[in-house]
């Protein structure tokens, strides 16, 4: 069980300037959670990929960033949700190098490798939500 420690921020992600803002906010939380520099960089990079996906494929959405604790450790959790078309084949979308557009196809699969916890919920026609967590060591 993880209980939120109270600090939380919500951001609208509509355009690519919001992707930059998400990176900055997530960095701030990562600093507060005292993640190592490498872990901060990994988390911010994963967040950047997921925020961009919400803009490019989900037609925009919302990011919620929060400080979390599980009694032993502190971490940062970020959730990226959109009301876009959803993902019909999740396994394919999570394949390295697969893209339906003109990307490198490393956003989802790469983000999953960069964090400690990765959860993808999606429903065709309803939208997509990806939640990632990185714990301080």
């Amino acid at each position: 069980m993880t209980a939120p420690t109270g600090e939380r921020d919500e951001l609208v992600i509509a355009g690519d300037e919001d992707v930059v803002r998400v990176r900055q906010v997530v960095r701030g939380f990562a600093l507060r959670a005292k993640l190592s520099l490498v872990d901060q960089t990994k988390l911010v990079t994963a967040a950047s990929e997921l925020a961009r996906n919400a803009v490019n494929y989900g037609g925009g959405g919302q990011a919620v960033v929060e400080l979390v604790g599980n009694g032993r450790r502190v971490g940062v959790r970020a959730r990226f949700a959109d009301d876009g078309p959803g993902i019909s084949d999740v396994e394919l979308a999570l394949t390295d190098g697969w893209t339906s557009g003109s990307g490198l196809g490393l956003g989802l699969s790469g983000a999953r490798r960069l964090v400690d916890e990765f959860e993808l919920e999606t429903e065709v026609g309803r939208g997509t939500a990806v939640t990632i967590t990185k714990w301080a060591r």
Partner: protein
Amino acid sequence: MDRIPILKIGQVLLVSIQIDLQDQSVLALQEDLAEQISATGAHGVIIDISAVEIVDSFIGRMFATIAATSRLFDADTVVVGMRPAVAITLVELGLTLGQVRTALNLEKGLAILGKLAAERELAEGLDDLDEPVQANS
């Protein structure tokens, strides 16, 4: 949207990225650089990322695109100053910079470009020697 300045130093174009890049700025930089390389006939491009805190797949792809574009104009690209945390993250993200040359710092980047330019001149000289020689009649 911020535009990244391009400096010309001798035969080299220098781009020093000092801000958190939004995708539009990345695309604009790719275009501006292609124009500048073709207009100036520069033999090399240096992209200094020592101030860059994260490189995600979109920004990483820019390096490859710039390197490929510069090759079309007979110029080489070197990415310099990548932070260790960024390098570690890129590997885990799954991004191989493949054809993109990297160097520890600006000085080493310039040395690489100088060497490549010298090699190219030498190769051109040898090509001239290869010109068919008129047979004596």
